[in-house]
């Protein structure tokens, strides 16, 4: 099981702060494929990845980032703090 966390518009669109998800994915891209296969709203949210960033165990990674040993994956838009 992996803990998924959603922020900003992704959180709003999915309607959840986060969820536990049984995934066999080895990297972020594969995880996203699994999520899209669940249908709405995931298929729409993850249709265009250009506005989506990912952190694995609270460290930002690319979409080919490994999920080996990962406990938590967060999806969010580019940061707008400051």
């Amino acid at each position, binding site marked *: 099981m992996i803990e998924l966390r959603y922020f*900003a518009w992704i959180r709003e669109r999915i309607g959840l702060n986060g969820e536990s998800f049984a995934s066999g994915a080895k990297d972020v891209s594969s995880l996203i494929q699994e999520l899209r296969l669940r249908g709405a709203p995931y298929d729409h949210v993850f249709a265009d990845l250009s506005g989506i960033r990912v952190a694995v165990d*609270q460290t930002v990674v690319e979409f080919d980032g490994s999920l080996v040993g990962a406990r938590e994956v967060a999806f*969010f838009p580019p*940061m*707008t*703090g*400051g």
Partner: protein
Amino acid sequence: MRVRVQTEAFDAGVELDAFSVGLSDVGAVVSFTGLVRQSPEGDLIALEIEHYPGMTERALKDLRERAITRFELSDALLIHRYGRLAVSEPIVMVATASPHREAAFKGADFLMDTLKSNAPFWKKEIRKAGEAWVEAHGRDAKALKRWESS
């Protein structure tokens, strides 16, 4: 606490003085305070700032360490708020202390540029006409690039 993530408002002057107390071998202290600015249309009611608890603190602590090492700062302070913030309330504050003026300025400038793209905060504008997530600016990425070569 030199890194704070909080909902409560802070007083920049009080923070600046608290930061400056007991610093030794310091010739320069720079502070930056970011405030909620009214929109050009004048219809902004508030900002809602969301963050990623846990990762935020880690990212800010890491940033602080990087700035201290890179600019040989004597000390650095980062405060960032989340939650609902009214117009003209403070959002963020950074302060740097250094033996030298240039390092204090550059350190604070670096912290702000880097924070914008590395600390997991997201701003939503609450306007009379509705709500909208603030989009990241191309100029933020450009500002960040300044620190790659120098």
